[in-house]
C-alpha cells in the first residue's frame, strides 16, 4: 500500500514529462491508474469483510516515536473504494470538461496529488501522519479552487477555504498532541486500546472540542460551512470530487475513526448531533432559494454532511449503519449531480437556474440521469437514497436522545430536499427553453458518461441492496467495535417509518407545486431569508480579516519606520544595557589584569592603530579614511603575528590589501563625502558609540579571564598530529576537524560573490 502512495507521487510528477502532443491521454492514464487501484482494493474486500485488516508498519523517525503506519480495514476500505472509483470517473469526466482550458497539466498534477493524499489520509493508522495528509488535502484544495487564478473571486474563495480549513487543521493538530500526551503514542491501535483512559482523562474535553473544530471546518459544518460555497469557484470536476465526494468527507471519516476512541460520552452525543442537526436543517433550507445550480448543490452537500455528522453523533447501532449507507447514497447522487451541473453549464453557458430550461429536448439522456440522481436525493423508491432515508428515520426513532426533535428536524430537512429535487428537475429540464440559451454542443455528450454510471449505481444498489452489506458491514463493525451481521432491504413493510417517508414526499411535492406555480414565492422567500440571515458569513470573514490586517499594519509602521540609523541605535543601546546588566550580575566590576606598557613596541603599535581609527572616523576626505582603515587592518595583523597567530596575520594582511584595492576600484566612481549630519546628531552618535566602546572594552577584559572549556582545544591540539597528520593545528581544524563549517563558509563566500556579480551585471529592466 505504501507503494500506491509513492506511485501517486511519481505519477503526478510524470505528468509534466508527457509531451504536449499526448496531453489528452494524461487524464486517461490517471483514470486507468485509479481503476487499477479500485481493482486492487476490491481483491482485498473478502479479507476485510471477514474482519481482517491489512497493516503496514514502517519506521519513520523512531527517535520521536513516529512511524509510518497504514491500515486497510472495513472503514478505510469504504473510503478507499469511493476515492478510487469516483476518482476514476472524475478523471474520465475531466478529460472532456477541461479540454478547452490551458494549464491542464498543473490541474491534473494537483488533482492526482490530492487523490493520493486523500487515500493516504483514509489509510493512515498513525495520527501525526493522518494530520499531514489532512493538511495536504487542505493545501491542494486551495490550489484547485484557485485554478482560475485570474479571477479575483476564485482567489478570495481559495484563500478563505485555506484559512478556515487551515485553522481547523491547527485545532486538530493540537487535539492529536493532547490525546497523544495521554496515551504517549500517536498510533491508532494504541489509541483504540486505551480508549477508556482517554475518556477518563481531564484532557478529554478540550481534545474533543479541538477535534470537533477540525472536523467541522473540514466537513463544512455550520457555522464553518461558508467556505464550501466559495469553493464552488473551482472547476466542476474539483467540486464533484473534492467538495462533495472526498475531501469534505474526510471530516466524516475522522469522526468515524475516532468514534470508538472518543465517542460514547454524553458530550460527544450532544455536541456532534447538535451541530449535525443544525447544519442539516440550514443547508437544506437555504438551498431552496438559491439560483446558481452549483450553489444549490453545495447547500445540499452541506445538509448531507450535517446528516452524516448527526448520525455519527447519535451513537446507536442503527444510526451508524444509516450513516455508512448514506455515505454511499450521497457519494453516488451528489457527484453525479455536480458532473451534470458541469455538463449543463457547458451546454448552456450559464449556471443560473432561471436562465436554463427545456433541456429535455436537447439532452434526454441527461434528463434520465438527473431524474435518477435527484430521486435518490429526494429519497424516492427504488433508489438507494430511499433505503438511506428509511434507515435514517429508523435511527431517529430509536435515538435515546431527543428523538422527537431530531425527527421533526429530519423530516423538515427532507421535505426541503424533495422540493429541491423536483425544482431542479423541472426548472432545468422541463419548461420553456430560454432565449439566448446557447445551442447544444454535441462534443460535450461524453460528459454524461461518468454521472450516468453513478446514477446507474444509485439505482442498482437500490434494487439490490445486498451488494452494499459487504461494504457497510465491516465498516460498521470497525466503528462500533463489535461483530454484527446487517441486512439491507428496499421494502421495510408498512410501518411508521414508511408512513413518515410518504408524508415527507407528499409535503415536499406540495411545496414544490406551490413554488413552481407561483414563482414570486421564491423571491419573497429570498427577501425573508436575507432579512433573517442577514449575517453573510463570507462578508463577516473577509471584513474581519481586513480589519486584522489594517490593525497589524498600523502596529508595524510604528516599529518599522524605515530609518536604518534608528534601528541601529535601538539595537546598540539595548545591547549596551543588556551587556551592562549581564556583566554586573555575573562578573562584577573588578578588573583582574594589571596595566603595563610592556613590551613597548606593541604599545606603540596599539597607539598607532588607535590614532588611525580616530583619523578614519574624523577625516572628511575619502582617501584618508580608507588609508587609515588599511593602517588599522595592518596593525591588527601585526598584533596577531606577535601573539602567536601566524595564519591569521598572513590572511589579514592579504585581505587588507585586497580590500583597499576594491575600495579604490569603487571609490573613483563615487562622489565625495557630503556633509550630511549636524553637530547635534554627531554628538549624540559619538556618545552612543563611546558608551558602546567602553562596554565592549570591559567585556573584552572580562573575556580574557574567562576559561573556555579547555577540552575542545586540547582535543584538537592532542590529536592534530596523531589522527589528522598535520602540524598546523589551525589548518587542521579548518580542513579536517571542522571541515563542515569551512564548507559552509566558502559557500557563503560563493553566495557573496554571485551576489556582487548579479548586482552589477544584471541590467535593470525598464518598466
Amino acid at each position, binding site marked *: 500500500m505504501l507503494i500506491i502512495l509513492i506511485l501517486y507521487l511519481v505519477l503526478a510528477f510524470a505528468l509534466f514529462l508527457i509531451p504536449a502532443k499526448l496531453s489528452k491521454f494524461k487524464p486517461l492514464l490517471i483514470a486507468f491508474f485509479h481503476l487499477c487501484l479500485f481493482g486492487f482494493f476490491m481483491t482485498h474486500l473478502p479479507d476485510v469483510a471477514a474482519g481482517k485488516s491489512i497493516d503496514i508498519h514502517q519506521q519513520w523517525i523512531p527517535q520521536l516515536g513516529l512511524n509510518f503506519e497504514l491500515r486497510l480495514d472495513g472503514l478505510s476500505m469504504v473510503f478507499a473504494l469511493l476515492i478510487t472509483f469516483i476518482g476514476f470517473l472524475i478523471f474520465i469526466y475531466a478529460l472532456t470538461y477541461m479540454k478547452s482550458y490551458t494549464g491542464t497539466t498543473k490541474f491534473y498534477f494537483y488533482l492526482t496529488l490530492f487523490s493520493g493524499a486523500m487515500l493516504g489520509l483514509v489509510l493512515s493508522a498513525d495520527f501525526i501522519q493522518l494530520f499531514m495528509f489532512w493538511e495536504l488535502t487542505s493545501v491542494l484544495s486551495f490550489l484547485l479552487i484557485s485554478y482560475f487564478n485570474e479571477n479575483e473571486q476564485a482567489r478570495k474563495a481559495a484563500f478563505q477555504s485555506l484559512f478556515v480549513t487551515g485553522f481547523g487543521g491547527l485545532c486538530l493538530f493540537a487535539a492529536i498532541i493532547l490525546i497523544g500526551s495521554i496515551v504517549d503514542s500517536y498510533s491508532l491501535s494504541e489509541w483504540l486500546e486505551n480508549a477508556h483512559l482517554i475518556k477518563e482523562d481531564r484532557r478529554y474535553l478540550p481534545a474533543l472540542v479541538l477535534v470537533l473544530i477540525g472536523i467541522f471546518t473540514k466537513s463544512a459544518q455550520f457555522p464553518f460551512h461558508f467556505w464550501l460555497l466559495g469553493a464552488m469557484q473551482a472547476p466542476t470536476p474539483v467540486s464533484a470530487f473534492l467538495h462533495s465526494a472526498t475531501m469534505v468527507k474526510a471530516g466524516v471519516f475522522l469522526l468515524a475513526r475516532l468514534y470508538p476512541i472518543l465517542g460514547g460520552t454524553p458530550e460527544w452525543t450532544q455536541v456532534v448531533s447538535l451541530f449535525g442537526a443544525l447544519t442539516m436543517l440550514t443547508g437544506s433550507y437555504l438551498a431552496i432559494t438559491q439560483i446558481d445550480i452549483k450553489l444549490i448543490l453545495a447547500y445540499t452537500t452541506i445538509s448531507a454532511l450535517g446528516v452524516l455528522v448527526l448520525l455519527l453523533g447519535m451513537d446507536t447501532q442503527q444510526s451508524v449503519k444509516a450513516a455508512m449507507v448514506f455515505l454511499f447514497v450521497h457519494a453516488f447522487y451528489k457527484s453525479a449531480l455536480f458532473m451534470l451541473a458541469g455538463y449543463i453549464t457547458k451546454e448552456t453557458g450559464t449556471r443560473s437556474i432561471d436562465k436554463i430550461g427545456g433541456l429535455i429536448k436537447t439532452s434526454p439522456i441527461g434528463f434520465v440521469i438527473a431524474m435518477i440522481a435527484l430521486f435518490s436525493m429526494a429519497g424516492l423508491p427504488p433508489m438507494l437514497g430511499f433505503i438511506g432515508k428509511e434507515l435514517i428515520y429508523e435511527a431517529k426513532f430509536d435515538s435515546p436522545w431527543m428523538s422527537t426533535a431530531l425527527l421533526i428536524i429530519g423530516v423538515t430537512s427532507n421535505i426541503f430536499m424533495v422540493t429541491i429535487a423536483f425544482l431542479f428537475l423541472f426548472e432545468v429540464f422541463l419548461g420553456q427553453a430560454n432565449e439566448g440559451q446557447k445551442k447544444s454542443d454535441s462534443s460535450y455528450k461524453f460528459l454524461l458518461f461518468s454521472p450516468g454510471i453513478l446514477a446507474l449505481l444509485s439505482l442498482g444498489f437500490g434494487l439490490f441492496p445486498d451488494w452494499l452489506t459487504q461494504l457497510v458491514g465491516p465498516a460498521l463493525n470497525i466503528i462500533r467495535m463489535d461483530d454484527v451481521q446487517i441486512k439491507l432491504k428496499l421494502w421495510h413493510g408498512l410501518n411508521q417509518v414508511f408512513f413518515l417517508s410518504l408524508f415527507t414526499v407528499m409535503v415536499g411535492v406540495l411545496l414544490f407545486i406551490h413554488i413552481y406555480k407561483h414563482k414570486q414565492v421564491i423571491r419573497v422567500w429570498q427577501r425573508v431569508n436575507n432579512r433573517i440571515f442577514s449575517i453573510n458569513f463570507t462578508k463577516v470573514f473577509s471584513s474581519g480579516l481586513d480589519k486584522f490586517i489594517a490593525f497589524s499594519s498600523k502596529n508595524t509602521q510604528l516599529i518599522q519606520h524605515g530609518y*536604518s540609523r534608528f534601528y*541601529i541605535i535601538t539595537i546598540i543601546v539595548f545591547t549596551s544595557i543588556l551587556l551592562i546588566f549581564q556583566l554586573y550580575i555575573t562578573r562584577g566590576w573588578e*578588573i583582574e*589584569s594589571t596595566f603595563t*606598557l*610592556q613590551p613597548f613596541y*606593541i*604599545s606603540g603599535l596599539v597607539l598607532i592603530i588607535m590614532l588611525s*581609527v*580616530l583619523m*578614519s*572616523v574624523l577625516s572628511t576626505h575619502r582617501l584618508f579614511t580608507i588609508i587609515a582603515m588599511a593602517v*588599522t*587592518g595592518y596593525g*591588527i595583523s601585526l*598584533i596577531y603575528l*606577535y*601573539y*602567536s*597567530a*601566524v595564519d*591569521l596575520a598572513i*590572511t589579514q594582511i592579504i*585581505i587588507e590589501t585586497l*580590500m583597499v584595492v576594491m575600495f579604490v576600484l569603487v*571609490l573613483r566612481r*563615487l562622489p565625495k*563625502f*557630503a556633509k*550630511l*549630519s549636524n553637530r547635534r546628531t554627531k554628538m549624540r*552618535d559619538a556618545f552612543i*558609540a*563611546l558608551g558602546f*566602546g567602553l562596554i*565592549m*572594552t570591559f*567585556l*573584552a*577584559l572580562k*573575556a*580574557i579571564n574567562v576559561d*573556555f572549556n579547555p577540552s575542545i*582545544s*586540547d582535543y*584538537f*591540539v*592532542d590529536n*592534530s598530529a596523531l589522527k589528522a597528520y598535520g*602540524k*598546523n593545528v*589551525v589548518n587542521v581544524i*579548518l580542513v579536517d576537524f*571542522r571541515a563542515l563549517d569551512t564548507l559552509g*563558509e566558502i559557500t*557563503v*563566500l560563493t553566495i557573496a560573490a554571485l*551576489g556582487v556579480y548579479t548586482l*552589477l551585471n544584471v541590467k*535593470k529592466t525598464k518598466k
Partner: protein
Amino acid sequence: MEILLSALTGLLYAGGVYLILRRSILKFIIGIIFMSNATNLLVFLSAGIVPGQPAFVGDAPSDTELMADPLPQALVLTAIVIGFGIAVFTLALKYKFFKATSTDDLDQLTNTDA
C-alpha cells in the same frame, strides 16, 4: 597588555558604531569593517594572549599548556575572509545604489522603487 588591547577593541567598536550611524553609505561600510575587525579581535583576545607560541605541534608531544589556543584562531581566520566577502558585497550594493539613485544618503533610501 590586556588592558591596552581591550581598549583598542573598544575603540574599534566605538569607531565602527559611530561610522555606521553616519548617513553616508561609504562610511557605513567602513564602519562594518571596523566592527568586524573589533569582533575578530575580541574573539581572539578571549582565548588569552600568548606571545611567540603558535599552535604547531611537532612529532614529539609538546606542552599544550603554554601554546596559543588554536580554536579561536581558526574561527577568526574564516571570519576575516567572510568579513571581506560581506564588505565587498556591501560595496557593490552601495555602488549599485549610487548608480540607481545618484545619492550617497541613506535617508533617501525610503522605498524600494528607484
